[in-house]
C-alpha cells in the first residue's frame, strides 16, 4: 500500500550527540562571551581598525580554546571540531568579534595537509595565540580547488606567487596566511608569513558585516620558500576539510546569533506599546516570531548533529550542508522580521537588528548560500 522507500532513508542521515566536553565548553564559553562582549563593546569594536580586543584574544588563548581541535602532540587539547562548535555558538550569540574562527579554520587546514615540520612549527604557536588566516576566495567569487587562478610557480629555490585573494579574515593581524594556489598544474596550499604583507598588497575590504574584518590580498610578486608549500598529496582532502569546517563554524555562529536576535526582538515586543497594547500581543507579530523560533530550534539541532557526525564519511558533509542551509534560513528570517518589528527604530543604525541581518548576509556570501548547499545536497541525497 504505502510506496516503498527508495535508496535513501531518513535513518541513513546523521544523528545528534553531545559530549560532556561540549557541555562544559558551552557553559564556560557562554559565560565568558556574555561578560567580555556586551553589545556596547561589539559596537565599539566596529569602529576599531583591527576589530577585536587583543586582551580578550589573549584570554581566549589562555583558556586553551584555540587548541581544542588540535592534537596533543602539537600542543593542543586533542578534542575535535565538534567541541569547537559550542564555543563559536557562544561567540555568535554575543556577536563577539575576533580571529577565532579564521584561526581555527587555518589551523585545521594545516592539520589536514601540512608537513610534519609545518605542523610542529605552526600549530603550537596557534594554540598559544598566534593568529592565522585562510585565503581561498578569488575575484571570480569561487573558493573551490577546481577554480583557482592564483599561482605559485617555481623560481630558483623560491615560489613566485601571483593572483588575488578576497575575503581573507583578519589578514593584517595574522602571522600566517594559508592561500590556495595552482602549483605544478595542481591545486595546493601555501603558507605566507606576515612579513610579506604591506599596506599595498593587503587592502581592508568594506563588508556587510561590520563586526568582521576581511582583506583583499594581492599576491603578485610575493616570494615564499619552497618549504612554504603544504603537502600537495593531501591538498584535495584539505580543501574538503576547509569547506566543511568553514560551514560548520559559520552555522554554529549563526545559530548563536539567531538566539540573540530572537531574544532582542522579544525584548521589544514585550516593552513597546501602541494602541494601548504591548505590541507582542498582536498575532501579526507573535506568530512570525514563533515561526522564527521554530526555524531556529531546527537550525540548532542541525548544528549539533553536524558537529557530531562531522567526520563520518558521507553523512558528515550532508549534515554540515543541511546545518548551513537551515541556520542561514533561520537567521535571515529572524533578523529580517526583527527589523520590521522594530518599526522606525528598526530602520536605524542603532537598532541591533541590522547587525544580525548583516551577519546572515555575510555568511551567505561565504562558502555557499542556501541555494548552493541545497544544490549540492540534491546530488548527495538522490
Amino acid at each position, binding site marked *: 500500500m504505502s510506496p516503498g522507500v527508495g535508496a535513501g532513508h531518513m535513518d541513513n542521515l*546523521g544523528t545528534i550527540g553531545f559530549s560532556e566536553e561540549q557541555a562544559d565548553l558551552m557553559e564556560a564559553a557562554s559565560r565568558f562571551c556574555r561578560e567580555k562582549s556586551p553589545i556596547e563593546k561589539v559596537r565599539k569594536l566596529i569602529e576599531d581598525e583591527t576589530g577585536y580586543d587583543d586582551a580578550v584574544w589573549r584570554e581566549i588563548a589562555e583558556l586553551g580554546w584555540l587548541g581544542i581541535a588540535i592534537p596533543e602532540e602539537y600542543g593542543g587539547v586533542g578534542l575535535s571540531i565538534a567541541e569547537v562548535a559550542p564555543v563559536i555558538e557562544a561567540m555568535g550569540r554575543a556577536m563577539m568579534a575576533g580571529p577565532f574562527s579564521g584561526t581555527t579554520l587555518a589551523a585545521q587546514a594545516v592539520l589536514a595537509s601540512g608537513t610534519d615540520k609545518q605542523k610542529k612549527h605552526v600549530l603550537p604557536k596557534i594554540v598559544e595565540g598566534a593568529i592565522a588566516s585562510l585565503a581561498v576566495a578569488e575575484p571570480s567569487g569561487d573558493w573551490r580547488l577546481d577554480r583557482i587562478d592564483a599561482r605559485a610557480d617555481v623560481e630558483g629555490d623560491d615560489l613566485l606567487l601571483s593572483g588575488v585573494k578576497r575575503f581573507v579574515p583578519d589578514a593584517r593581524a595574522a602571522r600566517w596566511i594559508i592561500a590556495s594556489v595552482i602549483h605544478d598544474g595542481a591545486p595546493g596550499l601555501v603558507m605566507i608569513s606576515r612579513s610579506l604583507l604591506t599596506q599595498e598588497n593587503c587592502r581592508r575590504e568594506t563588508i556587510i558585516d561590520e563586526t568582521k574584518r576581511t582583506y583583499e590580498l594581492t599576491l603578485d610578486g610575493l616570494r615564499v620558500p619552497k618549504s612554504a608549500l603544504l603537502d600537495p598529496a593531501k591538498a584535495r582532502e584539505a580543501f574538503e576539510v576547509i569547506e566543511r569546517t568553514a560551514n560548520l563554524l559559520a552555522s554554529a555562529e549563526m545559530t548563536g546569533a539567531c538566539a540573540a536576535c530572537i531574544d532582542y526582538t522579544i525584548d521589544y515586543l514585550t516593552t513597546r506599546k501602541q494602541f494601548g497594547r504591548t505590541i507582542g500581543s498582536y*498575532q501579526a507579530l507573535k*506568530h512570525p516570531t514563533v*515561526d522564527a523560533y*521554530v526555524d531556529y*530550534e*531546527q537550525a540548532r539541532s542541525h548544528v549539533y548533529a553536524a558537529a557530531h557526525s562531522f567526520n563520518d564519511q558521507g553523512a558528515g558533509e550532508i549534515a554540515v550542508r543541511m546545518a548551513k542551509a537551515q541556520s542561514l534560513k533561520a537567521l535571515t528570517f529572524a533578523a529580517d522580521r526583527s527589523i520590521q518589528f522594530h518599526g522606525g527604530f528598526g530602520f536605524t543604525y542603532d537598532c541591533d537588528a541590522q547587525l544580525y541581518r548583516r551577519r546572515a548576509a555575510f555568511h551567505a556570501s561565504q562558502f555557499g548560500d542556501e541555494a548552493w548547499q541545497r544544490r549540492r*545536497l540534491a546530488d548527495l541525497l538522490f
Partner: protein
Amino acid sequence: MADVDQKALATFAADADAWFAEHCPRDPGFMLPLTFMEVGTDQQFEFLRDWQHKVWAAGYLGAAWPKDYGGGGLPQAFQDAAMAAMKKHDAPIMLNAIGLNWTGPLLLDMGTEEDRKKYIKGILSAEDIWCQGFSEPENGSDLGNAQLKAVREGDEYVLNGSKIWTTQGNYAKYMILLARTNPDAPNKYAGLSFFLAPMTVPGVTTQPIRKLTGEFGFTQTFFTDARIPASCLMGEEGQGWLVAMRTLEYERGARKGQAGGYMMTSFDAFQIVDLAKRAMRAGAPAIDDPVIRDRLVEFIIEAQGLKLCNERGAIAPLNQDRPMGLPLSNKLAWTEFVRRLNEFAMTLTGAAGGYYVGDENAVDEGLWTRGYLNAFSATIGGGTSQIQRNIVAEHVLGLPKK
C-alpha cells in the same frame, strides 16, 4: 530507569522484531486508516481492534505501564524497543489512541487507584474504546468556555448539551468529558469539571459527521438528561480546567508516559523522493527536474531537523534556555510539515494528481491526495496551529496574551 538489564532488553527487542515480522498484517484488502482519526468503517474498526488486542497480549503495548493494571511493568526502554519493531515492520496504528495516549497516562498521573484498576486494562486490550468530549459546536479553540451542563443530583450528574468532532465517538465506551458544573463560578475556568463518563447510558447519542474526504471518523455527541454516577468525576468539582490542560499536554506530546504504539502511521520523508522517481513530468522522472529536486531537498532538511529536535529533546544541556520550547512547539512544527509535504507530493504527480482514491489511475491509490486532505486533522485537531503559535509565543517566548 538507570539500571536497565541490557541483556534482557536485547532479548526483548529481538523477540519483538521477530514477532512483528511474523504477525504484522499485510494488505487486509481494504484501506487501513493512517491515523486514529480516520477510522470510518466498522470493518476498519474491528480489524484495528483485533490488532491492538494482539499486540497487547503479546506484551508489546503498555510494556512500561504497571503490571497491576495490565501493563508489562518494564522500563520505558522496552516499550521503545517494541515501538522500533512496529515502525520497522510498518505495523498498523493502535486504534484506542485517546485511551492509550492521553487517558491512560492521565490516570497513571492523577487518577485514583480505583479508576486505574477499572479502566487501564480495558484501554490496553482495546476492549474499552475511549473518546474525548472537549470541543462543542460553539466553543472550540476557546475550550475554557465549554458549556455542556453537568448538574449534581444525589449520587449522579445529569448531563445536557452537545460535544462535537468526537473522534471514534460512535465506537467509544467511555469519554473524557469537560463539562460545566458551576455556571456562576468567578471565572469561566473555575466552573469546569472533568469526568470519566460512560457513553452507554441512556440519553447519549452520536451522529457521525462526514469529513472533507467524504469518509467518516468523528461524530457530534448529544447528551439529553444523561445520568452518570457521581463517581465519574475526576478530581474535585471546579478542577476540570487543570485536568483538561494536563490531558492536552499528553495529547500534544509535551508530556511523556504514553502506552506506546503509533496513533499515526509514521512515514519516511524519503517516500516522496521515491515518488519523484516514479512520477513523470515532460517525459522524464520528476526527480530530474531541478525545481522539484530543490523542493525535495528543502523537505528532507526539514524532516531531518524535526527528527533531530526530537533527539535533542533528551539532551538537557541543549535545552537550557527554554526547556519547554521543543515539547511545546513540536505539534505545530510536525503537523504543518506533514501537511505541506503531502500537498507537495500531490502536486508532484502532475496530471495523475487529479485522480482520487477509488480511481484505478490514482497514484499510490490516492494516498497523497487523501493524505493532504487528512493532514488538516492534525493542524486543526488537538488545538489549531494558530492556537499552538499562541501557546509557544506566550508560554515559551513570554509574549503577552493581551
